């Protein structure tokens, strides 16, 4: 296409700017995470970033695309950081690299690169790894575990055995186990407290990481990088379902606040389900997409066999996104409320 065509004025925006803002918005969460877990996270982010850029570069070259220009959009970095943040921080380096490989090579570039991938690359990475390496993907460092930086690095690079003793159940795991084994406490909170897993208002330690993610998410909303539809629908639907279950049986189900601030709920609502490429694009589609992801995530994390449900929930919603968009097209300006909204798949055409 002729680049010298109207309009000749452009808002100073770029994909790189959006991606950089997303990375910036992740920083508070990363900082809180660092304080909770230790510097191992930085190593994971480093491994993920380097391998993501490498894979992306090689694949772009191989596909005959402008390598430098496309690497500059920083979308691979966002995927890499999300992988590093959703994988257990002490997972071996090769696990992270495999995750990145599936995300960048399989889920993104082989589908045609940025803008063409039907599934969220970071969540493909998570799903593949949790199915292939369920044990490794469930080893979350135990609460209050203090390991020196060198020791953490040794674990990541496999020089030290990954001791099961170092890991423990996450708060979500604990509840799930309780739900299945019928060891009943008066309520879930007590159960978690008995295992020293309950903090101020949710899973101990994690609540602050999640709060930091929330701040980052709100920053993205304010900057206009994401729209409110998906996060709001996600949070509302997950809270609503959690509320119902909790009211029905507080001895087995945790309260909504706990659910929102545990696991990847907020990260998912603001940073993962909002991925524009694999998600919905129409406003109503976004609402349904967010709500569906919130509901599925709750169901999977509470009743499923995986530690958290965000990845599968988002991937399942990715499947429905094109259909949702087709049925949720907004009205063209001028079409009257009483006029039937024509869908794009209808054969009839409007007289120009």
């Amino acid at each position, binding site marked *: 296409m002729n680049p010298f065509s109207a309009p*000749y004025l452009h808002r100073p925006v770029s994909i790189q700017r959006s991606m950089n803002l997303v990375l910036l918005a992740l920083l508070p969460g990363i900082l809180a995470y660092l304080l909770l877990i230790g510097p191992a996270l930085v190593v994971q982010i480093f491994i993920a970033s380097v391998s993501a850029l490498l894979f992306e570069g090689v694949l772009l070259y191989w596909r005959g695309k402008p390598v430098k220009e496309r690497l500059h959009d920083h979308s691979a970095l966002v995927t890499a950081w999300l992988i590093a943040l959703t994988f257990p921080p002490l997972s071996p380096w090769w696990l992270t690299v495999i995750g990145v490989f599936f995300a960048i090579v399989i889920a993104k570039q082989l589908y045609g690169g940025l803008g063409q991938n039907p599934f969220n690359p970071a969540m493909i990475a998570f799903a593949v790894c949790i199915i292939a390496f369920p044990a490794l993907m469930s080893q979350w460092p135990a609460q209050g575990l203090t390991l020196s930086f060198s020791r953490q690095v040794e674990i990541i690079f496999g020089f030290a055995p990954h001791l099961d003793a170092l890991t423990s159940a996450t708060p979500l795991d604990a509840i799930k186990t309780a739900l299945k084994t019928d060891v009943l406490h008066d309520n879930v909170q007590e159960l978690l407290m008995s295992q020293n897993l309950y903090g101020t208002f949710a899973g101990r330690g994690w609540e602050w990481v999640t709060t930091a993610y929330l701040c980052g998410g709100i920053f993205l909303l304010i900057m206009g990088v994401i729209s409110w539809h998906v996060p709001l629908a996600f949070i509302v639907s997950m809270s609503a379902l959690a509320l119902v279950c909790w009211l029905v049986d507080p001895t087995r189900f945790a309260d909504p606040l706990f659910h929102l601030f545990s696991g990847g709920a907020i990260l998912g609502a603001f940073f993962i389900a909002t991925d524009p490429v694999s998600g919905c694009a129409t406003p109503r589609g976004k609402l349904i997409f967010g709500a569906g992801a919130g509901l599925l995530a709750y169901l999977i994390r509470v009743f499923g066999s995986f530690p958290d449900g965000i990845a599968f929930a988002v991937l399942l919603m990715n499947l429905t996104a094109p259909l949702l968009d087709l049925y949720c097209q907004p009205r063209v300006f001028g079409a009257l409320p009483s006029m039937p909204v024509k869908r794009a798949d209808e054969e009839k055409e409007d007289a120009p």
Partner: protein
Amino acid sequence: MLKRLRQFFRFPGGIHLAHRKEASSEKAITQLPLPEKLILPLRQSAGATPVPIVKAGDKVKKGQRIAAAEGWISASLHAPTSGTVRDVGDYPVAHPSGLAAPSIVIEADGEDAWGERQPFLEQTATEYARQVFNPERVQHYLQDMGVVGMGGAVFPSHVKLVKAPGIPLETLIVNGAECEPFVTCDDRLMRERADEIISGLIFLTELLGVREALIAIENNKPEAAVAMQNALAARLESVVHHIRVVIIPAIYPAGSLKQLVYMLTGKRAPIGVLPTQLGVQCFNVATIHAIWRAVAHGEPLIRRIVTVTGDVERPGNLEVPLGASIADILRYAGMRGSADGCLVGGPMMGFLLPHGDAPIGKGIHCLIARSPQLFPPEAPESPCIRCTSCAEACPQGLLPYELYWWSRAGDFAKTQRYHIHECIECGCCAYVCPASIPLPQYFRFAKDQLRAAAKNQEMADQARERFEFRQFRIEREKAERAEKLAQAARAQSAKRAVEQAGASSAPPTSEAEAIIAAAVERTRMAHEAETIDPKPEPGNPA
């Protein structure tokens, strides 16, 4: 004194642009020195191209008709100055394609002598009010005067004076929004010639019998609004009581027809519905000025005001004769060496002049000398990430990313189902796109392809109809021939029978059959004659 519009209807989308009008907005309108040569492309309006009525060597007077309107949606063309017709032939025109088109070249004699002028109105401005005009006479008069929309769409104005049957025209909107950055010609016109605009407006309101007239001006042109308001206040209250100046927020594209109508009246024109069918009509301020010059002074549309700005020494607003060379105008304004091209029209909807030069036409309101400083080159195109910024900015409520996707895929039928024909090519989507995709460029391409496909389809349909009719005819002829043979045979046998029976009179049946056969033959001939007759083109040329 100025009433702000208390409530306006906010159309969806739209963008806030830096106005960048300062360079020329304080420069009064000045006359371009009369050029020696004028090149007038015949096609200066939407609809049919007028037919030249002069030939090389003819002497023409200023204002003399040199090309006559062809059909209803067409407007005449006139000599902008006195001189000699040098050529009638193809010359480059101001069009993104850079192609040449039939034009009339006039060499000025420098006298600028008017021919005979016949104003439509004899009376002064205030007296004609309450007069009853014959609308058809006015329409034909304006068509003869070559008045077309001067906001860029160049739709013949007389066509817009025809009311939709059965729908009272309630609101007349005067478009003084001038929402594109850099452009200031309407602003200056309103400041300097407010009185003539108001006269023209009163004429139109009387002619059309509208209930109210609204002069819409964006809030970045307060001086223009004050000038218009003062011009209104100077008139008799009884004449102008129904006319108001309304200040609208500066949201691009507030000056676009559908958006402006909605903003002021809350009426949304559904797909395929013209504003007249909603009881609203809209004219650009410059068009109303031209209408007034025509009806009151007998001046056809032979000049216009053009904002010349950008990378020039002396930005300003020039009144130029049609056909003046764009390169000359830029030179006159002092185009700097750093300028690397010329944008014709505003920066949002205009185009880069493909060659160095082309003549000024009725719809060109702005020339911008382009430089890399003023218009930094856009980053290379990236893939679309479906961020939906474009959909949020689209004033027509379209989904540009879907249109882009299907245009790129070459599935133009799908773009139609996403309402590509509703796209006004305003450029809002490309302005906000983080992937730097020149979206309207894709849409123009898709529309061209659809047009071409529709034309092919039409031709194929005609061919098929012709073919089917021929088949039908052959079949019918065959049947007729067989029938005739049968008749002959029957007649023979009848004759034989008669002869054998020795009956006296011819049997009546065969006579009846002969009559029928003759009738069949007549219709056949009539049909064939019809197919030879040139049939009028189906489909409409608009």
